[in-house]
């Protein structure tokens, strides 16, 4: 790339990141494929599991294997998958014959909405806490809040989930905890639908928020503390702005960008890392789709899910790096 000197460093950087990203993606698909192939049990067997009362002859089993292309060498299967992917086709689910893309589309919203909600919630709650803590650094509020948050941070989300289900769901019967909406959802008025959805979203959103809440507020506090020490803040103070104004205007805005960086890093994790929570809450999202696909040996769906997650992680990292560069001019793209 040094041969073409007139490409700006930013573009060169992006291009390099893109190329390495492609290599990484390629590696990921290969490893995924190998793991899938090595795992015992195959789709043909998975299809016949439910037929306990019916007999399935060896011939039928072999035909099913042929149908799923399992009789071909692994590299041919991989090539076929890659070939389809290049045509932007994730293939057909081995489980129910639906297009994988539409299966994922259906599962995307439930997961995504919870992720967005929980990030928003964490943001809304953690920012004031962080700012207040930073403003009154080492004061009683700062200390008690940070201790509490620390303890909260250490509670695994599924443990919170179990406790919420037990106390709010079973004992107090305040919130439903299975699925996305009630049985009579279709008959409800618009307002009723909103309330119903909100009640169903409540627990799973709380579970996903709690961990990031502590993380974010400590992050905000830390960033503010750093920013406050910087020169231009000192200038602002010298200009006679009040402490509140200084913090709210300058410091807060300036610490927003690293926050976005953090978002780029945590969002993909929120999307993919909720297998247990979604199983627990019977939530029809990506995590449960993933777990069910593992159990059903639905190879095309698994491959697609892993591919999409990897793309999101890579994109998230790239965005985070770029955002980081925006704030900190010392970061160069060479």
């Amino acid at each position: 790339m040094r041969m073409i000197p007139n490409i700006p460093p930013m573009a060169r950087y992006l291009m390099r990141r893109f190329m390495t990203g492609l290599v990484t993606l390629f590696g990921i698909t290969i490893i995924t494929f190998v793991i899938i192939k090595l795992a015992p049990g195959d789709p043909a067997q998975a299809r016949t599991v439910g037929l306990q009362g019916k007999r399935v002859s060896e011939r039928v089993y072999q035909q099913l294997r042929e149908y799923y292309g399992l009789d071909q060498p692994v590299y041919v299967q991989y090539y076929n998958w890659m070939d389809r992917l290049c045509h932007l086709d994730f293939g057909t689910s081995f489980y129910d014959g639906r297009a994988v893309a539409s299966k994922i589309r259906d599962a995307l919203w439930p997961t995504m909405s919870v992720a967005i909600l929980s990030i928003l919630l964490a943001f809304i709650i953690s920012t004031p806490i962080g700012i207040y803590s930073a403003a009154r650094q080492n004061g009683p509020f700062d200390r008690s809040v940070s201790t509490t948050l620390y303890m909260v941070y250490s509670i695994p989300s599924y443990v919170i989930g179990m406790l919420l289900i037990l106390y709010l769901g079973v004992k107090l019967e305040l919130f439903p905890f299975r699925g996305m909406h009630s049985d009579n959802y279709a008959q409800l008025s618009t307002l009723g639908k909103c309330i119903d959805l909100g009640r169903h979203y409540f627990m799973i959103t709380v579970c996903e928020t709690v961990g990031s809440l502590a993380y974010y507020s400590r992050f905000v506090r830390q960033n503010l503390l750093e920013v406050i020490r910087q020169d231009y803040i000192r200038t602002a103070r010298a200009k006679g702005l009040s402490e509140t104004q200084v913090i709210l205007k300058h410091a807060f805005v300036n610490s927003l960008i690293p926050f976005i960086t953090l978002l780029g890093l945590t969002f993909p994790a929120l999307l993919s890392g909720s297998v247990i929570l979604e199983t627990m809450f019977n939530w029809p999202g990506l995590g449960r789709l993933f777990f069910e696909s593992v159990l059903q040996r639905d190879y095309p769906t698994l491959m697609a899910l892993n591919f999409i997650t990897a793309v999101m992680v890579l994109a998230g990292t790239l965005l985070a790096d770029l955002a980081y560069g925006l704030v900190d001019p010392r970061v160069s793209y060479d």
Partner: protein
Amino acid sequence: MTRSTLTSFAILISLLFALQACKQNIEDIRRGPDESSTKSTTSTQTVVYDPHKDPLVNQPDMFQPAPQNKAEIASNETLIWQLDGSPTNLNPIFQSAVVDQMAVDPIYQIPFTGDAKMNWVVNKDMVESYEESPDHLVWTVKLKPGLTWHDGQPFTAEDFRFSWQAINDDKVPSPAYKTATDQIADVQAIDARTIRFVTKEALAVTRWNISYPIIPKHIYDNPVERKAHPDLISGPYYNKYNREGVVGFGPYKLAQWIPNDRLVYERWEDYKGTKPYFKRIIMKIQPDPQTTLLLFKQGQLDYIERLTSQQFARETNDSDFAANGRKAYGPQWIYSYIGWNMDGSNPFFSDIRVRRAMTCALDIQRIIRELGYNLPQQAHGIFHPDSWMYDPTIKLLPFDRQLSAKLLDKAGWKMNPDDGWRYKTVNGKPVKFEFEILIPQGAATSEKVAAIFANDLKAEPIGVSLKTRVIEWTVFQQMTHNHEFQACMAAWGSGTDPEGEWNIWHSSQYNGGRNYGGYKNARADQLLDAGRREFDPAKRAKIYQELSHIIYDDQPYTFMTNAPLLSAVHKRLRGMQLSPVGLAMFYPGWNVWWVPANQALRQ
């Protein structure tokens, strides 16, 4: 901050560890396990549940047949069922689970089916007449006139022929029906209403084999689509007709399918056969048994096909349940077993004495009492005592730990007094009696049975070590199929015709069949072969009775319990029949359920 934190820690720690400071009453501990527990608790657990004394169970109302006077019957009623998973699709030839079977049932029909006693019956809504050739090779079936598909197209013999071809097409991944329909040599459409089935062999089971699901030729045999998607399952066209656009010919049409939520069926008013009494059926997809019961108690469900034993005995005695619900209890032809691998790959179970010793060491009554709340019954071998194949002279092995120890001694497995385990010298080396049992994931009761069994086997005088391995269903299937196991725990439903046993017990079925444990008995092989070709019911019964006796004596399985039928039904429902496969999935099954006009609830 530190002080308060420290205090909270102290509390948390004390929760876990400081509790041990409590004084123990040695007397309580020393008393045997059973005595101490009965003494120390007053919980309801100690009260024995008896389904026959439960006022909500099998009330006579439930079984009242529909009256002649149609005015007494609510005609606009909705019935809401629980479906414990999403169906994969609604094309019956692709059925791969019980859920699919239930979801398809209202939309489709088959010409011959089983009644509440599991006898073969003709579906009079479809078949006008049938004829079996004297050599049992050719069946001619005449359809009723005027049958149509839901979309108005005529329902003809061509559809039979097409469906048979589709099922047996190598490119069509139909897991369930290829195996039986490949016994048919040809399906001929003589005229629009007459079908001739020509079979390869004269088999007693032919009358079941020719009853396969029928799909509409005019939709599936689409030349363009079939070329692009010869599997009849992929692509948007087939996806539509296999799912929300399904075209059937049963008494109901699919009105709506909300994925992960519900399927709604509307009565098809143009239906030519006997019209069912419910205007609408909703199948509510709810995989979780606890939520299901909750919904039922709130009046949002009318029928739960399977309750757990615990729910049936313990969680349905409250006023919430009694306000809306009744319970159905009866025998089902399903038995749970521990299968022993006898193919010689392990040093234990090829020996019949060892297998018998294992059975004698398993406290089946305790399992029934503690895990099944007295609801299941002890299994009497491969056939249910209510069935015509059952041999009443079968003598059950007793639960007798001393006898078990004696049998193990005889088989050469001697107790080592140094460590309390049994050993045997095999090929000059001492082998410890330690085996692994495979359990499919999600079978919670099996895990508990294994825990009890392991405890009992370990204790004197038996001294056998049992390890459990819980694996996914798919892997379970693979490992048992490849004979990679020492013992496994599962269940069989004995189905409609004993023909199914051939595939499980015939020695030729060790490779590729379901004879996972390698059972081999020349007489059993003879009987299995004879049973397939015997057409005289009395003689056939004799054959299978002898077979069941032989198999029980050989103990290739330790037969545990017959799973009972445990259903919850809304109190307004009438017209039910108990059957070995539940209240609904037989002929006419739920098609004759009704609700008295004065108790109509969901119009």
